[in-house]
Each structure stands twice: as structure tokens, then as C-alpha cells.
């Protein structure tokens, strides 16, 4: 056997092994998804993967009453927390990007690290505080969720704002624009992909949050969808079809947002032509 042949054989073997390994991982990921889809349209769904008795009955069951209300609660919780985090985040990121702030680098490091602090550390004192001031409802919880996603959002947006050329801001200032006008008309439109990405991060963070609303929201009629899914499993004989259908509906916004965000990232900046390349 020539060395060249040996080399080819090695490459083929290696690539086959890689594909097999990836395939195995793929199956691990695809099976639960497949179960979710098949069980959601199966009138007699069980925990096993099987060919469905095709029906939309599960969807009809879950899109009623308190379950539907829980989805609405999730929308309120996520939209409010995303709005708060994104708006305050833009101001913070702009200041961190453009202004001279003492100890800016350590401050940025602190912000980045604080995005990694486990919720478990904070949740008990926060519960104490919320319960003392009678805040164990949905809107204060949205505020708390926005705070948990804020550090990472600020950091992400700051990097995008850094990339907006200073000349553009200076040109606007010479024309007589105020700082707020500069931010609104020049910086925000140009950093929009970053702001959108950060907002999507914040939204998904709140949307999927289970522990925080579970602890911080008292009233059952204010609890969001993840708690509803959790409740499905607390009965002796879970309705697997309903769980699957509800979970599938719950996933839809996340799927949509991820596809939007990937398009945003592909488009990237719209800075072309503004300043020299």
C-alpha cells in the first residue's frame, strides 16, 4: 500500500467515524422533538414514540381556559421585561461605549460577570423583599427578569454601538442634534441588529423562565406557561398528548424569534457607504 493510499484510507475512516458520532448525537436530539410533534397530534398519546391516531383534539384541549390564560401571562411577562431591559440597556450601552467613565474596563468586566451569577443566589433575598412590599405579582416579576438579562444585553449592545463610526455622531452634533437625537436618529438605527439580538435574548430568557415566576408570582391566574407545563406533570396520570400540544405551541415564538435573529445577523450592519470602507 502506498503512503498516499494509506492517507486516503485514514481520511475516509476519520470522516465516517465523525459522521457516525454526529448522527448518534443527532438522534438523541431529534427523538424528543419527533415525540413532541407526533404526540401532539395523537388522540391516545403515551410517553413512547409511536405512530399517532391523528387528531387535533389535544390542541383544542389546551387552547382553553386557564391554559390559554397562562400563555397570555407569558406574553405579558416577556414583552414587559424585554421592553424594560432593551430600553434601559441601550442607554447604558451608549454611555459605556461613548462616554469617558472612570474605571470603565473593570465596570464592564463586572457587568459581564454579573450576567453569569446563578439566580439561586439572588432569589431568596428577592423573594423576601417582594413579599415584604407586596410585590409577588406579574409586573414586578417582569422587572426582576429584565434585570437578570440586562448585564448580558448591555454588553452585547455596547459592542454593536462601538462599531458605529464616531464621525456620524459628530456630524449630527455639528448639525445641531442633541444627544438624545443623535441616539435616536443615528446610533439606534445603525446598532439595530445588536439591539434586536439583545432583545431576543431577553425575550427568550423571560419566556422560558420557570423558577423565577414560580417563586415570585403568588396568584395562580398570573402564572405563565412554563408553570402550566410543569403542573401537567404533577398529576398521577399525565395527559401526554396535551403536554406535547401545549409545549409545541409554547415553542413557536422561540422558533420564530431565532429565525428572525439569524436573518438579522446575516444582514449584519447597514453601515455600507456611510463612511469610507
Amino acid at each position, binding site marked *: 500500500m502506498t503512503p498516499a493510499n494509506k492517507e486516503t484510507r485514514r481520511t475516509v475512516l476519520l470522516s465516517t467515524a465523525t459522521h457516525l458520532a454526529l448522527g448518534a448525537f443527532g438522534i438523541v436530539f431529534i427523538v424528543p422533538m419527533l415525540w413532541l410533534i407526533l404526540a401532539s397530534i395523537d388522540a391516545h398519546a403515551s410517553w413512547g414514540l409511536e405512530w399517532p391516531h391523528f387528531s387535533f383534539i389535544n390542541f383544542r384541549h389546551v387552547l382553553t381556559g386557564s391554559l390559554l390564560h397562562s400563555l397570555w401571562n407569558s406574553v405579558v411577562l416577556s414583552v414587559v421585561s424585554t421592553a424594560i431591559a432593551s430600553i434601559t440597556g441601550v442607554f447604558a450601552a451608549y454611555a459605556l461605549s461613548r462616554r469617558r467613565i472612570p474605571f470603565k474596563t473593570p465596570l464592564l468586566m463586572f457587568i459581564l460577570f454579573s450576567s453569569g451569577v446563578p439566580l439561586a443566589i439572588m432569589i431568596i433575598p428577592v423573594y423576601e423583599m417582594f413579599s415584604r412590599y407586596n410585590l409577588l405579582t406579574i409586573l414586578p416579576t417582569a422587572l426582576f427578569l429584565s434585570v437578570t438579562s440586562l448585564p448580558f444585553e448591555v454588553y452585547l449592545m455596547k459592542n454593536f454601538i462601538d462599531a458605529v463610526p464616531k464621525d*456620524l455622531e*459628530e456630524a449630527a452634533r455639528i448639525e*445641531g442634534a442633541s444627544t438624545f437625537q443623535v441616539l435616536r436618529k*443615528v446610533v439606534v438605527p445603525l446598532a439595530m441588529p445588536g439591539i434586536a439580538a439583545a432583545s431576543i435574548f431577553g425575550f427568550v430568557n423571560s419566556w422560558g423562565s420557570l423558577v423565577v415566576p414560580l417563586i415570585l408570582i403568588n396568584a395562580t391566574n398570573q402564572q405563565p406557561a412554563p408553570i402550566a407545563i410543569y403542573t401537567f406533570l404533577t398529576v398521577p396520570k399525565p395527559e401526554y398528548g396535551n403536554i406535547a400540544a401545549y409545549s409545541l405551541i409554547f415553542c413557536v415564538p422561540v422558533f420564530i424569534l431565532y429565525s428572525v435573529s439569524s436573518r438579522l445577523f446575516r444582514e449584519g450592519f447597514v453601515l*455600507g*457607504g*456611510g463612511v469610507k470602507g
Partner: protein
Amino acid sequence: MSGIRFEGVWKLFEGSAVVSDLNLDVRAGEFIVLVGPSGCGKTTSLRMLAGLERPSHGRIFIGDRDVTDVPTGERDISMVFQSYALYPNMNVYRNLAFGPRVRKEPRATLDARINEVAELLQIKHLLKRTPAALSGGQRQRVALGRALIREPQVFLMDEPLSNLDAALRVQMRAELIRLHQRLEKTTNVYVTHDQVEALTMGDRVAVLKDGVLLQVDSANDLYEHPSSVFVGEFIGSPKMNILEGTLSFSGDSCTVEVLGVRADVSERVAGRLREGVVSGPVLVGIRPHDLFPATGSTGESPAISATVDISEHTGAEVFATMETGPSRVVARLPRVPTPDRGERVDLAFRAGAVHLFDRDTQLSLLDRGTPSRRTSAPADISQQVR
């Protein structure tokens, strides 16, 4: 109609002076060019005038108004950036309308005004396009248009042509001059590192080096009477030959010995020699245009024997680097016959065109155009300067 005045303006960055004691008066309606190598402080000076940087010391006036502490948006200026700084998220029309809109100028006249400016700059057909869909020259025009919309007191330009290709640059240069003649009420401050641009465009040219204003003069005076070796070398292309020489006086006549020959420069220095100049070593500046094959006519120096090393054809003329004794000089040679490498040529210079500089201070020994600048910094500033 407003002039501009810099009064003892300093700009310090981390203890070192980027602009040192800048004193400059620009007349109303004048087109002044700030020129110098990179890092000379010309852009910083412009940015201080625009209000984008605050001077560390000194005052800046536009007309009679002290604008040192006036926010940039209230200075009634327009600026064209080197990068053009067009808003990429807006089309050309909205780029032009940005200023009037943020200043809340009446909408009724805006359309007409934009059309007028667009017509003047021939960009009317581009109003709906975004900057990304424009060529370099078109972007340049839009940037210019955005500055013109304001009808400012002062028009600032920071190397606006440096991103254009050579042919377009020459064309835009001519258009900018025409534009200035049309808008004669506006005072223009133009920053460039290109001495040709400076000489062709400026009513007056201010030469800066290392943050110090060396000389402000018309193009002609800068060329004829450089105040220092630096200005002599910086202005004019190819650059001036600077040579070691000896100045001697005997009776009424004055001679300079340079490149191994002695030439009578009495006429050149008559009545212009600065006080206190005595016989001794000097630096002699001879422009390549004034150094050519000897013809033996009056006003010429004695012949200097030289050998051609490298010759550069510039179209109308040939400039050759020549070796003569220990020195290398650039001289103007005829186009035909093309000088060959190693060819021997007898050179002579125009004695009436030599420039004399002090060997230590490098300042001109002749009286016209010496810089009038303070020799020492104000006490509080010199302590801050490393």
C-alpha cells in the same frame, strides 16, 4: 460674514502638546488651508474650531463671538468629514434634510432648498438612493451638499478629497474653488496634508509642524519666501535642496559658497538680510527648478560638475538626482536628450533664487515671511508640557 480668530490656543493630550500656542486670524470670506504632515495638529485645530474638541488653553472666536465654550451645534458651522460621515440608514434626501429637521427649520422651504443644493452639486438624480449605492465622488458631493444646506458662517473641510482617485480629486478641487467663489460670504477652513491642494486652493496657507504654526502666507509668498527649512522643503515639488554652505561679506558684496563654487548673492540679500547675520556657515536652499545645466548667462552661479544618478520624467520636465562631490542634489534637466545614468552635466543655479537659513535655528536669514510666534509658552502651560 465672519472671520475666525485663534488666540493662544493649546491642546494637550496626556501632557504632550498637540497644538502649541496657535495664533491665527482668518479674514471673513477667506479660504484658508491648514497644511502639514500627519500629526502636525491641523485636524485637531479644525476640530477645536468645530467644537468637537475643547482647547486646553486659549480662546477661539468666530466673528466677534467667543465660541470657546459654545456647543458645537450652536456655532453656525458646517463640516465635511474625511470619511464623508453620511448616515447610511437614510437616503440622500434625508441626509440633506437631517440638519434642517433637527434644527426645526420651516418645512415649507426645505424641499426647494434641497433641490437647489442638489442641482448646484448635480446630485438631483441621486436623492432617493442610499449612500451605499453611490460612488466615491457622489458621496463626496452629498457630504458637501449636507454642509451647504445650512448656509453656515464657516465652512470646515477635513481632507475631503483624500479618498478620491487622482483624476476626480483634481476635478473636485476645481469645483470646490468655484463653489467658494460663488459663496464668497462663507469663510472656509480646509485641512489637507497635500501641499499641491493647499497651494491651489487657499487664499492663504498655514503650515503647521508638530503642533506649531510655522508660517501663514499666500501660496506665492510661501514658495518664494519660506520662513524655515521645513516650509522650504514641504512646499514645492520636488522638494528644495538643502545644502551646507558658507556666507561671506566683503565690502558691499555678499557671496555664498556652496557645492564647491562661490556665487554672488548681493542682489538677492540686498536690504533683506536679518539683523545680526555675519559671515559663516549657513544652510543654503536651492529649488530643483533653479538648478539646471549651465548656460553661462548672467545671474547664474559658476558651473558645478555633476553626474546623473536617477532621472524622473514628470511630463514637461525631467528631474534628476545628481551627485556632485559629497552632495546629492535634484536638478531640472531638459527633456531631450534624455539624461542617462552616469552622464556628466555642468550645473548652475540662479543666484537670485537661493534661500539662506540659519544652521542652528533653521529659520530664514532673509527678512520676508519670518514667523511671528511667541518664543516661550505661557508659564502655566509650559509646566504641563513634557
